[in-house]
């Protein structure tokens, strides 16, 4: 599938240099970069199961943040020790 996008000049120059260094034509090189960028989960996808756990935990946001503060204090105290 072909997609037309607009790329800033300074990025194009860099893209050309890197494509040349990798021995690939610019479109093939750019396509690989885009493929790598969208391959893994997004941050929001990664956080989704954690947020579902929070809902299942039955804690309120305040209870959770109070717990977080206590745990952060412990982390910092252990770092200091």
């Amino acid at each position, binding site marked *: 599938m072909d997609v037309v996008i607009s790329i800033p000049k300074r990025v194009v120059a860099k893209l050309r240099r890197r494509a040349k260094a990798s021995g690939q034509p610019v479109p093939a090189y750019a396509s690989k970069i885009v493929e790598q960028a969208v391959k*893994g*989960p*997004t*941050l*929001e996808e*990664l*956080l989704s*199961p*954690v*947020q*579902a*756990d*929070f*809902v299942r*935990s039955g*804690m309120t*946001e305040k209870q*959770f*943040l109070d*717990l*977080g*503060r206590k*745990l*952060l*204090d*412990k*982390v*910092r105290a*252990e*770092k*200091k020790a």
Partner: protein
Amino acid sequence: MTPSTPRAVYDAMVILQWAALPPEGSRRHATVIALSTGRLRLAMSQRLLDELRGLLLRPELRARLPSLTPQHVAAILKKALEFSDWFGSVPSRFSLPLHPKDDHLFDLAIESHASYLVTWETRLLKLRESHAAEAKHLRHLAPKLVIHTPRELAEALKLKTL
């Protein structure tokens, strides 16, 4: 991202909040949107990363959020680093005498020339209006640094969270 993308330091509690608390209804966390849309880059240091890892891996937290396995925490932090600029060396330049445990956040903000320090902590937010010597010193060291709550950050960036 552009060469002039502003940087922000998020304190560990802000990151814990977006990691674990579901967005309200259809509202997404402004602190996440700012990063994923390239409006901001996160400033990150080894100290802050270690603090985050230590927090997310606490057994007391995992007892309530079982998804926070070491592998999943590693994946979340790796993803967060994609939105971050790394500062390998962060000199000690600033200290809050009563709360030295926060010093590394200020030092990172100073070193990274961050535009924003994002926090819910009252003790840090109070520095904005303070005329105390340490507040003046911070303004001298980081004249463009603004301390915001996540909500204020959304307003400052005019982010649509819906």
